[in-house]
């Protein structure tokens, strides 16, 4: 019997109303205290194409994507053959038996529920007949998987509070499916869900919603954005939370401004204009948007204007796979824009970090007076994750960085906007309108001296460019440092990873452990890299670097920026658009080690 450890996949038609039923199913399991990882695998389409909802249920909290489907709910004739193939031997197929279909596998168990027939009998309106089929299969699953029916009924009542008329038909639909399963099948199956306390106080939320909420708590007041999958929900979440948390009680007016810009160039322009003027402003975009924003990013870097960007990465290049995930904008973001430019990147691994890093990004952007790009991805942004609850430190205010007010300006003999007064490479700035006589300066992307005056003197330009390097070095100490996994058992092998790969690492480590391989791990959380990153690479004979892109982009960045031997870093790459699995990581590491063993004729690199 398998308890709390399976992958269930729902194959649906896009636009058929399946999303809310599937989400209900996942949340019900979460409410039973069992960790879940739902993932939407959706097309770039509004209606008609196949779409899937894949949900991993794992009592140990291993929530990275896993290949192989234990239970397939096949509701889409278009993808039927493909869906049947995906089921693991011994797995289950739940399908709508109103229609006769050929099932050419004898190594799987089939559960036919006449969903269309049942819903046609019960409901009269065509739209209801369609929608409630989805709810009915969730009802059947509650019986088949032994789910707590009161929990799911309670969720229906919560969801339709205020629209009470909808509660009864939804519960009816659940019961139609549930009763049919109870009557005709031996419920529960040998795969089932059991109430657990593994979820603890965790929450279930999408990374983009967490990022939007983080911006509210970070004090962001201006958001400018242009719609692009998979980032759109960052701006939408910010707007929703602002409506709840940022309406002025006295006047009913907004303590925020959200502009849906005419394009990404305008979006980043507005963000730069607002930050220049002392408001915390951000944009959310994806790869193509970053390409468009590049010229402005160079301006913000050189003119030293703070800006916060969320890049919810998707499959590239070009329009690429807009509804699939990748980590393939690293080089494009690190060096976005012409000339010598570098930007601060932060890599969140879960929604809790999307929230925390949103707050931290504004502090960093203002402290360092430069753009900060938060490198999320579609998997993190658009899927609900089981994640730690949000917390804020109320004793900490916002770090607005080095900004002189009128009184401070009175004390300054001559204000130099680009003067390194403190020796950390970070100059002082002023907001427009601060002082009638002092502190005004001209912000420009042309070469300038320490007093913001235009100059064509090459030596002055060199001085400013070198200070910017100095500032970037200061940033190394301020950005989120790496996180070391496992106790440091001093293996000769190291494993580096970042972003959403993290979710698959504990499981991969366990699998490697079963192979007798001990590997030290480190999760990189930011660029520029701190000294610890360089030390980790230099202290291991071989370091595997897991990335979800083709060109090992983070490896390029490490080789470019650190004093390390490139040969030590072995790329472990997955870029098919699906989140990387633990098995993929383990297989590629094993292959790499075997390849090495063949080459050297020894297995000395494998640590004991």
């Amino acid at each position, binding site marked *: 019997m398998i308890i709390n450890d399976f992958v269930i996949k729902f194959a649906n038609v896009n636009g058929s109303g399946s999303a809310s039923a599937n989400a209900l199913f996942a949340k019900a399991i979460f409410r039973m205290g069992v960790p879940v990882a739902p993932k939407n695998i959706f097309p770039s389409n509004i209606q008609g194409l196949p779409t899937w909802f894949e949900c991993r249920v794992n009592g140990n909290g291993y929530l990275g994507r896993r290949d192989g489907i234990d239970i397939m709910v096949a509701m889409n004739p278009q993808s039927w053959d493909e869906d049947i193939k995906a089921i693991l031997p011994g797995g289950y197929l739940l399908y709508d038996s109103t229609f006769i279909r050929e099932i050419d596998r004898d190594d799987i168990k089939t559960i036919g529920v006449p969903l269309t027939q049942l819903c046609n009998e019960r409901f009269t309106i065509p739209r209801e007949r369609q929608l409630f089929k989805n709810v009915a299969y969730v009802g059947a699953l509650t019986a088949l998987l032994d789910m707590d029916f009161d929990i799911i009924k309670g969720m229906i009542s919560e969801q339709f509070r205020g629209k009470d008329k909808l509660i009864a038909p939804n519960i009816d639909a659940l019961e139609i499916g549930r009763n049919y399963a109870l009557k005709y099948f031996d419920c529960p199956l040998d795969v089932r869900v059991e109430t657990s306390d593994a979820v603890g106080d965790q929450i279930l939320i999408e990374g983009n919603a967490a990022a939007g909420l983080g911006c509210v708590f970070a004090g962001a007041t201006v958001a400018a954005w242009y719609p692009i999958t998979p980032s759109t929900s960052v701006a939408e979440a910010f707007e929703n939370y602002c409506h709840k948390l940022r309406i002025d009680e006295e006047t009913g007016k907004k*303590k*925020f401004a959200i502009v849906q810009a005419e394009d990404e160039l*305008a979006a980043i322009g*507005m963000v730069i204009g607002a930050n*220049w003027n002392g408001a915390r402003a951000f944009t959310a975009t994806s790869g193509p948007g970053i390409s468009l924003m590049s010229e402005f990013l160079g301006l913000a870097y050189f003119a030293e204007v703070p800006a916060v960007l969320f890049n919810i990465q998707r499959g590239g290049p070009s329009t690429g796979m807009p509804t699939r995930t990748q980590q393939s904008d690293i080089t494009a973001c690190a060096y976005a824009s012409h000339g010598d430019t570098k930007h601060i990147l932060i890599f969140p691994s879960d929604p809790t970090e999307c929230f925390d890093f949103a707050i931290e990004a504004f502090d960093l952007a203002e402290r360092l007076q430069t753009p900060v790009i938060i490198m999320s991805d579609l998997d993190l942004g658009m899927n609900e994750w089981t994640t730690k609850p949000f*917390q*804020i430190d109320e004793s900490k205010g916002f770090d607005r960085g080095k900004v002189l007010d009128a009184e401070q300006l009175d004390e300054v003999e001559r204000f130099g906007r680009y003067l390194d007064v403190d020796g950390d490479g970070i100059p002082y700035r002023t907001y427009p309108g601060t002082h009638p006589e002092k502190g005004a300066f001209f912000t420009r992307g042309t070469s300038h001296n320490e007093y913001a005056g235009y100059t064509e003197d090459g030596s002055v330009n060199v001085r400013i460019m070198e200070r910017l390097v100095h500032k970037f070095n200061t940033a190394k100490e301020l950005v989120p440092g790496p996180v070391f996994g496992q106790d440091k058992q001093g293996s000769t092998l190291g494993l580096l990873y970042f972003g959403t790969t993290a979710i698959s690492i504990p499981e991969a480590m366990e699998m490697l452990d079963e192979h007798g391989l001990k590997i030290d791990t480190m999760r990189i959380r930011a660029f520029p890299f701190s000294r610890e990153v360089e030390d980790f690479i230099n202290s291991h004979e071989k370091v595997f670097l897991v990335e979800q892109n083709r060109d090992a982009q983070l490896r390029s960045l490490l080789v470019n920026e650190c004093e390390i031997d490139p040969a030590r870093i072995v790329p472990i790459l997955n870029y098919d658009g699906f989140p990387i699995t633990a098995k993929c990581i383990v297989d590629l590491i094993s292959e790499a080690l075997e390849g090495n063993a063949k080459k050297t004729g020894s297995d000395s690199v494998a640590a004991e």
Partner: protein
Amino acid sequence: MSYIAKPKFHHPNLPRNELGLTRRDYEGAMSTLCAGCGHDSVSAAIVEACFELNLPAHKLAKMSGIGCSSKTPTYFLSKSHGFNSVHGRMPSVATGANLANNELKYIGVSGDGDTASIGFGQFAHAVRRQVDMLYIVENNGTYGLTKGQFSATNDRVSLGRKGQKNAFDSIDLAAIAIQLGASFVGRGFSGDKEQLVPMIKAALSHKGFAFIDVISPCVTFNNHNGSTKSFEFFRDNERSITATDYIAPRETITADYKEGSVIDVTLHDSSTVRLRKLDANYDPSDSAAALQHIMKHEELGEVATGLLYLNVEDTELKEKMDIVNVPLNSLGVTELRPDSNKLESINKSLR
């Protein structure tokens, strides 16, 4: 060259405005434009307007893109913050700045390349959003810094310096601004300070998007015979539709014009714009009529100038967006960050 500081000393008896400031206090660095450039006259008109309006310079911000015109904000109002952004993108930077703090006045200076070509989209959307700013285009029909290519405002009949023909019709930015819904649209000539200064004063007192297309000849690349943006052509073919007088809030209005030809419009700061209609049929509150006049004069080979369109009924960006009256950049952690109880209840809703 702009890094050569202008001498600070000046005549001790220079006239002072209500803030006790002289015109010199509103000036900027030395211009690096060609001698005789129309743009320098526009800078001078801005200085004059700000001086006469008694504006504190630090409560103004100067925004620009790239090009000769976009360089000019260095040459006026040195006590104001300035932002020389990227080519064609000043409107978005100004929009963001405006959202952060709408208590400042924003003067955007752009050129015909910056606005009518590379930045046409951003210009259109800044107008559509009714960003509260004065947007001046110093329009010379040519790309000066790259040595004289045609711009999109160069008239089809207007020849290049070496007699080259222009294959395409020009974009009339004033007409476009009216169509897009700008609430204040004027056209001036850099050589006509009498017309330009009151128009800038009125535009700075207007709440909403104020657009002034200033024909500002390029003395180096587009001031020859055959050009329709030369000083000579313009002096011969300018047709002023309205003459503008600006009357400050507390000044008394003396009616010294012929009955029926004068329209007084009260602006948002209760100052008054007095329009003397030079064409009896002209109605500056009617956008369709304004467009018709512009096009009619264009057909005659003339350029309609003056305050072409004025709408004091429309609201500006921050009102449209229903944003609090205080500048967003003045809100601190207590006003912006919900407490941890709120966060805890959000956590709860996600379980």
